[in-house]
């Protein structure tokens, strides 16, 4: 699509893959004997290897965070608004690493990969992965890249959970933690949305208890409904109203006319659901939403987040968005209060936005200012 690459883009990028042969013991007790992580890098690692930044992706994210794979790409990477030369995560300054997490479906080892023990796709047998497993695998990727300490680890939503886990599990390897639109743990309402989405998937007759690949099928309808449920919760009532209102795509309410009526929002949601179902793996979706549900930063610290953050030594930037009801500002307040209680460095901004949870992905002047100015102060 881009006739020419924009000047503030990282340009054409090529994903890389590393094959890990050192077994990884997972939180669930099972071990991955070997696995692959696919990742992209933007910018140059400096001689001191002190300018590396790790991007942790959210539920439906992946390694392709910025730039273009080909000149025919319709869109750049998912966080292109924030990664690039002169952008908040400035690739003139930082060496940015963005990976696809284990259990995902965009190239890293996951349910669609071949299980070396059977020679067949893992499918439903792929182990449950947790946030701490992702962080452990990210630490090994850092080892491979020769990065002893990240200048910053950055993530939104589920990505923010990984950032906080990094700060606790590897305090000496992370200097700055940027936690955006995230939470110390999911609320019951949040888990409920995830379960409704999972139920849609497992109820699809094409799911076959997760062994759909062996049956040459894909539970597309279930995945689409799961995505529709999720998507509704990522937007705000206002944003949806402003964008679609009650506009009709088809039909009319004229008396004497029984032509079916279709609202624009229905058509939009269906499109979102269908396109997601064509690119995402159902078993991945189930595992990643479970990882979200299970995450509870303070669980091992007597349920006291202050105690938890005493393990951390990184400086924190925490950002929330006013209309985000899936990861509401109150959840970020809990993070900030715990950091203050633990006497840790923290800066917090609550960005006025009408875009709900999705705001963390979208361009916004104040968000860009806070984010950019904070990272400008990170020494490399």
């Amino acid at each position: 699509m881009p006739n020419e690459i924009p000047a503030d883009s990282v340009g054409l990028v090529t994903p890389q893959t590393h094959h890990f042969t050192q077994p990884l013991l997972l939180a669930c007790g099972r071990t991955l004997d070997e696995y692959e992580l696919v990742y992209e890098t933007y910018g140059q690692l400096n001689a001191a290897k002190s300018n590396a930044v790790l991007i942790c992706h959210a539920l439906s994210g992946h390694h392709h965070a910025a730039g273009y794979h080909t000149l025919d790409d319709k869109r750049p990477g998912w966080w292109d608004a924030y990664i690039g030369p002169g952008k908040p995560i400035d690739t003139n300054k930082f060496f940015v690493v963005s990976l696809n997490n284990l259990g995902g479906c965009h190239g890293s080892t996951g349910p669609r990969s071949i299980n070396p023990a059977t020679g067949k796709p893992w499918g439903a047998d792929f182990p449950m992965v947790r946030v701490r497993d992702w962080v452990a695998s990210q630490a090994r990727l850092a080892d491979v890249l020769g990065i002893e300490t990240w200048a910053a680890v950055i993530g939104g939503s589920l990505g923010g959970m990984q950032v906080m886990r990094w700060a606790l599990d590897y305090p000496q390897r992370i200097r700055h933690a940027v936690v955006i639109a995230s939470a110390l743990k999911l609320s019951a309402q949040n888990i409920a949305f995830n379960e409704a989405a999972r139920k849609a998937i497992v109820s699809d007759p094409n799911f076959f208890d997760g062994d759909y690949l062996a049956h040459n099928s894909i539970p597309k309808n279930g995945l689409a409904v799961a995505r529709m449920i999720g998507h509704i919760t990522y937007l705000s009532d206002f944003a949806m109203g402003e964008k679609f209102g009650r506009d009709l795509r088809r039909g009319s309410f004229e008396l004497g006319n029984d032509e079916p009526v279709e609202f624009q929002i229905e058509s939009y949601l269906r499109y979102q659901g269908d396109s997601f179902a064509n690119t995402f793996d159902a078993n991945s979706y189930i595992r990643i939403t479970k990882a979200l549900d299970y995450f509870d930063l303070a669980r091992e610290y007597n349920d006291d987040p202050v105690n938890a953050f005493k393990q951390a030594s990184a400086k924190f930037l925490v950002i929330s968005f006013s209309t985000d009801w899936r990861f509401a500002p109150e959840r970020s307040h809990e993070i900030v209060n715990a950091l203050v209680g633990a006497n840790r460095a923290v800066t917090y901004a609550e960005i006025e936005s009408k875009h709900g949870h999705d705001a963390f992905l979208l361009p916004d002047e104040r968000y860009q200012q806070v984010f950019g100015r904070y990272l400008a102060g990170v020494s490399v």
Partner: protein
Amino acid sequence: MRIDLNEIQSWIKQNSRVLDLGCGDGTLLKFLIDNKQVQGYGLEIDAAQINLCIDKGLNVIEQNLDRGLGNFADKSFDTVIMTQALQTLHFPHLVLDEMLRVGKECIVTFPNFGHWKARFYLATRGRMPVSDLLPFEWYNTPNIHFCTFKDFEVLCRERNIKVISRQVVNEVSGQTLKDLMPNLFGETAIYHLSK
């Protein structure tokens, strides 16, 4: 109107924990970090000011003081400071209580509405004072709860707040008179409080 940072600094202990309410562009907090090595946090609601704090590398937290300090534990700070913000609050007396709950000591500064110029303006013109120090009309001023030094001390007595010390600072004029008749000639007061 900026308070002499040295006046406030003299009441802050080395390496102490400081919370600055309405920290503005962070000048005071930065000064205290540089000179007293304090562990400091600033609360602010103005986006432009928050940006300036971030530029200085400060711990700035976006929080509306009118929603209270319920998120901070009792006596979790050595000193809670509020400079030139008391008069902008909806419930200054409640915030003052909260400051003394969260902090072992407090430092509060505010402009004196009993200053002779304000009195003279009101007396002669019959209109709310507007000056270079208070450059707002009554309807658009952020300063919604003005008080005089005397008013403030009455409030302290009513709420059993101990005034450890008081400094009167004049930037414009009346350097001698302010010590003789502070409520008439003092421009700004710095109160050092505890409970």
